[in-house]
């Protein structure tokens, strides 16, 4: 269900997915939304157990990742798993090239994922306001765009574990500001 919102957001910003791209877990979104615009994809994973991982690192202590490296970072459904948020956001900023774009999503209303909770832990559901403030501490505020999507139906369906196909598409497209099911953020590192 959250994939509907995530993929809609990435499709809207597919132009940003180009050059040297960093994805998390696997490279599916980098390939799908970047296509021929992508010159190189790195995949970051917290542990070494992802076969596609080219970088094994904890985002909050990512000193081994070179600075000014990526034209685009696709950070979907990751930040909720990171306890030390501010160092992680500083790492995201540091490893972007000047002019590089961060595309990030995180859930607002979502049940606990048992798998994630038992591996590295699941910590946060952000409001769009929180997301904005967290990133404005590091990125220039005029380069940060935040959008929340969802409504009570999307939240309900998501909590009950239904699929996008169970819900009419136009019902998912209605946004109710009280129900932030999925939060999306785009931020740009300024050119020097």
């Amino acid at each position: 269900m959250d994939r509907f919102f995530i993929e809609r957001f990435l499709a809207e910003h597919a132009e940003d997915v180009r050059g040297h791209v960093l994805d998390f877990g696997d490279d599916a979104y980098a390939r799908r939304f970047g296509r021929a615009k992508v010159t190189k994809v790195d995949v970051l994973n917290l542990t070494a157990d992802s076969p596609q991982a080219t970088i094994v690192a904890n985002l909050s202590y990512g000193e081994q990742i070179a600075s000014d490296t990526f034209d685009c970072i696709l950070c979907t459904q990751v930040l909720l798993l990171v306890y030390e948020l501010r160092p992680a956001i500083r790492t995201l900023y540091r490893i972007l090239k000047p002019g590089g774009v961060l595309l990030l999503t995180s859930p607002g209303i979502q049940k606990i994922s048992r798998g994630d909770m038992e591996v590295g832990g699941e910590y946060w559901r952000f409001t769009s306001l929180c997301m904005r403030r967290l990133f404005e501490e590091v990125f220039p505020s005029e380069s940060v765009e935040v959008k929340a999507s969802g409504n009570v139906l999307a939240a309900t369906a998501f909590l009950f574990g239904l699929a996008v196909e169970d819900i009419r598409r136009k019902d998912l497209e209605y946004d109710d500001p009280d129900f932030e099911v999925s939060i999306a953020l785009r931020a740009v590192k300024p050119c020097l």
Partner: protein
Amino acid sequence: MKPVAPSSARRWMKDRRLSLERWGLRLGIWAGPGLLRRITPINPNDYGEGRGQCIDRYYIERFLTEHANDVKGHVLEFADDTYARRFGGDKTSKIDVLHRTADNPKATIVADLACAKNVPSDTFDCIVCTQVLHCIFEVEAAVRTLFRALKPGGVVLVTDAGIQKLDSVDLKNREEYWRFTSLALRRLFEEVFPAELVEVKAYGNALAAVAFLHGLAVQDLKQEHLDYSDADFEVSLSLRAVKPNGPSAR
């Protein structure tokens, strides 16, 4: 436009409608496919207080009932003193009410918990901190203030929202930041309080979560459905932490 029906008749119709809705819910008429066609909440106006007791209040008050023995001596509460009076009763010797802005006549301390120089240290036997922390961006600093304000041996009783819609009023005032998981709440407090003195408990299940999102009330659900606990659906979180006696305090 002037209402056609007299007020008594309107009240009767409203009560009637509410009770019909409740029977509909009990019988599962709405809980079935109907719920999956509504893109607006059954009750969009509030968290259920217009229909009965809010679902989160049910969990909050259950937690405070379990720990009513801790509410004693000099107690600090937020916004008003309702819970300190209700759960502390004769056990309280003094109650302070903290509010962020000076426009609350019940406030005896006006302070922002995150940069709270005017909150006294080592003062309170108990702090009742319900539904406060999710409105504080600098939540780590707020937790440090709670620790500092407690007397050695003092207890903080915290509750906060897990799965909950945003409050339109808070949204306009730009106040809501977080929905914590029980793990986040535990880690936030274990950074300041000794881990063995922090207890965290989550309440709720899928039905309670969805009913709460729709603005339904406790009276709309069966008690056994509210009391069933599913660890994947943290509707309401509670935490009890004790400031240690003596110099071991961090």
